[in-house]
C-alpha cells in the first residue's frame, strides 16, 4: 500500500489534467517566505503539513498566511510538529481560494462487485463515514467500458450541479477515473472538492497506489510507508511482519493460520505483540532470518505455529535451530512450537534435539504460550 502525500497525489491528478490550486512544496520556513514573496504561491495562502494521517485541520497542521512573514512563521510552527507520531518534513503552500460548496468524490475497489466504485456526495469536507447513505451516490465502473457518460451525468445530477460546474465536473470525473485506472490506484479520493466560481478544484488529494503494482511504478520506490523500523527491515527482506501492542511473538505460515493463532492466543488471555508470516517459503535461510528479526522485537515468548504444506516442517525446524544459535543471549525467549504437516516427524525430531518440544494441539500450545508470555519479563 503506497500512500501518497497530498502533493504527490495532486501531481498525479495534474498529470491527467485536473485543475488544482496554485501551490508549491517547501521544506523550510525560508523557502515558504521565498515562494510567497516571489508570487509563485499567491497570498493569502494555506500552509499544510504533508503527513498521511487525517485531521490535519483540527490538529493545527494546516494554517493560513497573508504575508510572506506569516507564511514563514506558519511553516516554522508546522515543521516543528510531530503529527500523530509522524515528523513533518514537507509542507504544501497553496493559494487560498474563495470556496463555494464543498463536495466529496472518490474511486476505490468494490471487492464484491469486482468493479471499481465511484462514490460522490454533496457533503464534502467532513468525514465521509459520518455522511448518511442517501447522501452518497455509488457508480460501478466496468473496466472495459470506462466511465460512461450516463454515469457522469448521474453523479453531476446527484451533486446538484448545473452550467459551468457541471461541465467541469464531467471532465474532472474522467480525470479521476483515468488516474485510478491507469495508475493502479487503490484509492483516489478528493475531500473536499471545492466549487470556486465555475471551476471545481481539488483542495485535498488522498491517493493510494496498490503495492502489488509497484513493479510498474518505480517512481514510488522512495516512499516509506508508516511502518516501524523493524517492519521496514522485514519488508526489505520480503517477510510479512506486523507489530501490535502485546508481548507474545507469533510465527506462523499463511494469513489464515496466522490469524487463527492470534485469535487463539487472545481467547486464552494472551496479548500478541508481533506476528510474522513465513508464507510459503521452503528456504531454511529465510526462516532463520525471520527468527532473528522476531528476536529483535524482544517478545516475552514466541509461539511458532506452522502447518507444513508447501513449506516443509523440517525446513522450518532447521532454520529455527540455526537461528537459535545466532540469537544473542540477551535477546533469547521461551519458544512454544507446534509444527504439523509435511515432514512433520523429521521436523519434530530436529526440534527435540535442539531442546524444543512441539505440541500437537492448538489449545494446549496456545495456553502454554500465554503462560510463558505472562511469566516472562520484558
Amino acid at each position, binding site marked *: 500500500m503506497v500512500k501518497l502525500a497530498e502533493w504527490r497525489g495532486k501531481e498525479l491528478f495534474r498529470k491527467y489534467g485536473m485543475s488544482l490550486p496554485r501551490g508549491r512544496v517547501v521544506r523550510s520556513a525560508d523557502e515558504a517566505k521565498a515562494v510567497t514573496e516571489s508570487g509563485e504561491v499567491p497570498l493569502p495562502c494555506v500552509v499544510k503539513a504533508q503527513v498521511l494521517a487525517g485531521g490535519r485541520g483540527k490538529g493545527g497542521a494546516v494554517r493560513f498566511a497573508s504575508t510572506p512573514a506569516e507564511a514563514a512563521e506558519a511553516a516554522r510552527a508546522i515543521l516543528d510538529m510531530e503529527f500523530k507520531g509522524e515528523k513533518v518534513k514537507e509542507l504544501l503552500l497553496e493559494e487560498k481560494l474563495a470556496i463555494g460548496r464543498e463536495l466529496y468524490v472518490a474511486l*476505490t475497489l468494490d471487492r464484491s462487485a469486482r468493479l471499481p466504485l465511484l462514490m460522490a456526495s454533496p457533503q464534502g469536507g467532513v468525514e465521509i463515514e459520518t455522511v448518511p447513505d442517501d447522501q452518497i451516490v455509488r457508480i460501478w465502473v466496468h*473496466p472495459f467500458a470506462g466511465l460512461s457518460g450516463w454515469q457522469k451525468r448521474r453523479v453531476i445530477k446527484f451533486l446538484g450541479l448545473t452550467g459551468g460546474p457541471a461541465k467541469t465536473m464531467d471532465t474532472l470525473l474522467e480525470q479521476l477515473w483515468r488516474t485510478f485506472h491507469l495508475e493502479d490506484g487503490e484509492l483516489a479520493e478528493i475531500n473536499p472538492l471545492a466549487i470556486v466560481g465555475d471551476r471545481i478544484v481539488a483542495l485535498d488529494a488522498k491517493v493510494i497506489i496498490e503495492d502489488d503494482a509497484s513493479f510498474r511504478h518505480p517512481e514510488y520506490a522512495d516512499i516509506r510507508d508508516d511502518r516501524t523500523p523493524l517492519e521496514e527491515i522485514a519488508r526489505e527482506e520480503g517477510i510479512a511482519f506486523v507489530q501490535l501492542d502485546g508481548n507474545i511473538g507469533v510465527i506462523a505460515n499463511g494469513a489464515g*493460520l496466522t490469524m*487463527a493463532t492470534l485469535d487463539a492466543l487472545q481467547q486464552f488471555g494472551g496479548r500478541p505483540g508481533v506476528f510474522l508470516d513465513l508464507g510459503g517459503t521452503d528456504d531454511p535461510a529465510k526462516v532463520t532470518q525471520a527468527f532473528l528479526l522476531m528476536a529483535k522485537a524482544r517478545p516475552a515468548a514466541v509461539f511458532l505455529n506452522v502447518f507444513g504444506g*508447501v513449506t516443509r516442517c523440517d525446513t522450518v525446524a532447521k532454520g529455527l535451530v540455526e537461528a537459535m544459535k545466532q540469537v544473542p543471549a540477551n535477546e533469547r525467549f521461551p519458544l512454544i512450537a507446534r509444527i504439523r504437516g509435511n515432514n512433520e516427524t523429521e521436523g519434530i525430531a530436529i526440534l527435540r534435539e535442539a531442546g524444543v518440544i512441539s505440541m500437537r494441539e492448538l489449545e494446549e500450545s496456545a495456553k502454554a504460550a500465554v503462560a510463558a508470555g505472562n511469566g516472562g519479563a520484558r
Partner: protein
Amino acid sequence: MSVLVDAETRVLVQGITGHQGTVHTVQMQKFGTQVVAGATPGKGGTTVEGVPVFDSVAEAVQKTRANATCIFVPAPYAKDAFFEAADAGIKLAVIVTEHIPFHDMLAMYHYGQLRGARIIGPNCPGIASPGKAKVGIIPNVVFHPGRVGVISRSGTLTYEIVSGIKDVGLGQSTCMGLGGDPVVGTSFVDALPYFEKDPETDILVLVGEIGGTAEEEAAEYLRHNFTKPVIAYIAGRSAPPGKRMGHAGAIIARGRGTAQSKREALESAGAQVANFPYEIPTLVKERLAAGPAR
C-alpha cells in the same frame, strides 16, 4: 462427479520450468492428476518430469487436449498468461501466483467472463478432489476420499482443517481454496452452487476470514439456495479493525466485514460456526451423525 475437476481433467502447467512449477507438477502427478503439458515461452520441445513443454498454450492445447491450467508465472506476466489460456479455449484456470495487481485481476476476471473461463485464485492453493485430480498446490498428504466439501479463502489453515477431517476418519469430496486477494475469480457465492449440486458432497466446511463481505454474501446464498449442512469458521476475530481501504472502504463495508458480522450472518443462515479451526472435524463428524437434513 465432483466439483470442477474430475478424472477427465487434463492439466496444463504455465510456468512449469520454474522451481514452484516443477515441484508442484510432481505433486499433482503423485496425486494421480493427468498433467499433460507445460508451457513456457522459449522452452518448447523440452520436458519437465516427463511432461512435454510447449512455447504456447495454443500449441499445448492442440497437441494434448489440455482443458485446465495451473498458472505459476510471476505476477507481472500472470495477466498475459491467463489471457493466453482463455484465448486458447481453456475453461478452468487455477492461478497460484501471488501479488497480482488487482487492476490486472479485474481485467482477467471480466475477460474470463467473456470467454467463459473460470478463474480460481489468484494467490490460492487451488482445487483438489481425492482420487480424481488436483490443480494447484494443496499438499497431497491432507487428503482422503470422502464426502466432505471444503471451500476456503485461506491457504495453510485450510490444509490443517482438511488434514483434521482425515484424522477423524472422514474424507473430502472436493476442496477448493479461493485465495484471499481483494479480487478473486471464484468467490464463495460462485463456488456454492457446485457443492449444492455435487452428489458426492454431503456436508460443507466453509473457512472465511475478516475483510471484504464475501462471507456475508455466502450467508445470503446459503439461506436461500443451499440445502446441505454447513460448518463454518472465520479467522481474524482478534485482529484490529482493518483500515486497508481507508475511508472509502469503510463506506462500502458499512459495518460488515468484521469477524463478528460474518459469524452472525452465517449463523443466522443456519451454519454452525466453530470457535477454533481444530473444532471443525469433530463438528463435521457430529453433524453427519445427526442425519442428512439441514
